[in-house]
């Protein structure tokens, strides 16, 4: 078991405190003792001198007494020299002891600090790696017990994160697998339903009007199911990061024409007028033609379904900075602000009351958003209740050859 920082600090402090206290006590005691001895000696010396001087004044052995007085005066000088030497020695001794004890303490603490530093630095680096997504990162457990338990706790946390990420990945894979399998299993019976309904409707002349209507309901609903399946597949792929696009430099005019062609029948069916306004001199955009058509068809299908018969719908393409914005505007009922905020989320529809009569899947805008973002673009929606709606998306301009400096811009937009 490694020693803890707290234990080492306690022991270090205790030793330093004891040494310092002992030095102080010894120093002071020695000083007092020396001083005492000195004063006693001085007192005795004076006493002898006074006795000698008394003898001189009384005339007894004056010569010897004078010699004694002189001797005592010399001895006191010697004693004073001694005591100042001794005091200096004691001070030096105590000073040296203090310095030694403090140096020892400083060495102990710097040792402790440096033994903390490496493991802590390792922890900091490992935390940064973990935060950056390296879930396999671990630290070496060792050193003081505090850093060792920090290290162990870190490793446990990283292990737990890794385990959960693994479980989540597995769940995601299972979900993707499930959607794919479900789609596959649903498609075959759906093929039969739609195929045989088509066979029936080919015999239209031999069916009663009610039967024709019934078969058309079957066909409408099977087509709706197919759209729903396709949309679910696209979203599952998008979630799994497997929705792929193949962008090519494409004329905006072509994209608008594609969408117009795909939607003409549907719009005419409700007497809705589609006008287009593509700015001249637009740069080519980086776009997967089929996928952009899907985006525009989704936007136009919404306009078609949510607007009344005879509504006016406009597709407008303009340049905005390095992007091209394509906007679909209608003069339909509009969308309240609180619903507009969630309009690009899946299974969200503007008006629950309309849900019954419109045929959408509730996934069209979510897919449009995914597809546009895959192109490095953005989507937006504006609406005034009663004043129509505008759904728009931006696509980055395709980098023209020799236009290399703009390429990083396009990458940034992603």
């Amino acid at each position, binding site marked *: 078991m490694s020693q803890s920082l707290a234990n080492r600090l306690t022991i270090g402090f205790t030793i330093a405190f004891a040494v310092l206290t002992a030095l102080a006590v010894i120093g002071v005691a020695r000083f007092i003792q020396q001083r005492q001895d000195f004063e006693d000696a001085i007192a005795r010396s004076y006493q002898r001198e006074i006795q000698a001087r008394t003898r001189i004044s009384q005339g007894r052995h004056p010569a010897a007494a004078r010699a004694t007085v002189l001797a005592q005066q010399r001895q006191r000088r010697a004693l004073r020299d001694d005591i100042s030497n001794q005091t200096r020695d004691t001070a030096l001794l105590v000073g040296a002891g203090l310095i030694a004890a403090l140096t020892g303490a400083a060495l102990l603490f710097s040792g402790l600090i440096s033994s903390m530093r490496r493991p802590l630095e390792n922890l900091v680096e490992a935390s940064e790696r973990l935060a950056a997504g390296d879930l396999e990162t671990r630290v070496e457990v060792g050193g003081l017990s505090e850093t060792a338990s920090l290290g162990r706790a870190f490793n446990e946390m990283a292990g737990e994160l890794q385990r959960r990420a693994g479980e989540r990945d597995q769940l995601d894979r299972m979900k993707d697998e499930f959607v*794919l399998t479900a*789609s*596959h299993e649903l*498609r*075959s*019976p*759906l*093929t*039969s339903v*739609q*195929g*045989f309904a*088509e*066979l029936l409707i*080919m015999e239209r002349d031999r069916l009663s009007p009610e039967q024709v209507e019934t078969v058309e309901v079957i066909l409408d609903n*099977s087509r709706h199911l*197919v759209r729903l399946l396709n949309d679910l*597949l696209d979203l599952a792929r998008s979630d799994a990061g497997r929705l792929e696009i193949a962008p090519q430099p494409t004329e905006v005019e072509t994209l608008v024409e594609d969408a117009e062609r795909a939607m003409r029948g549907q719009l005419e069916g409700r007497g809705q007028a589609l006008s287009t306004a593509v700015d001249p001199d637009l740069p080519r955009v980086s776009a997967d033609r089929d996928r952009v058509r899907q985006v525009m068809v989704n936007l136009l299908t919404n306009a078609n379904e949510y607007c009344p018969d005879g509504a006016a719908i406009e597709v407008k393409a303009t340049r905005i900075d390095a992007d091209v914005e394509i906007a679909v505007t209608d003069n339909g009922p509009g969308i309240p602000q609180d619903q507009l905020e969630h309009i690009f989320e899946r299974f969200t529809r503007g008006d629950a009351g309309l849900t019954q009569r419109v045929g959408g899947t509730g996934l069209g805008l979510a897919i449009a958003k995914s597809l546009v973002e895959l192109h490095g673009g953005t989507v937006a929606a504006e609406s005034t209740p009663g004043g129509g709606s505008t759904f728009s998306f931006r696509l980055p301009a395709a980098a023209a050859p020799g236009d290399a400096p703009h390429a990083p811009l396009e990458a940034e937009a992603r």
Partner: protein
Amino acid sequence: MMARVLVADDSETILLLLRTRLEMAGHEVQTATDGQGVLDALKGAGPKPDLLLLDAMMPRISGIDALRELRAAGVDVPALIVSAHEEANGASDEGLAISGYVSKPIDFEALFDRIAELTAPGPAA
């Protein structure tokens, strides 16, 4: 214009649908319910089909496996692969000379156009 088409699918319902629509369009239809049936039909003594319409996923020998074996044996009949999985479309051709993919549900008008292209006399696809 009329072509002899060998259709393989493990679902009897789909087979019935394909047979009905193809016959209505004037084609002659042979059927198989798995890859082995396809191999038997081409190895047998009967008339050879002008086109294969194979389901990608069938039990035992899949459409893709059957086609691989046929190509290895030097059979060069054009083949269309029917698949519920869009994922499978555009999967590596592996030199199987696949002439196209047909998604479920089947767009029959597009399928008939493709069959006409592939079986037209003259420049083979």
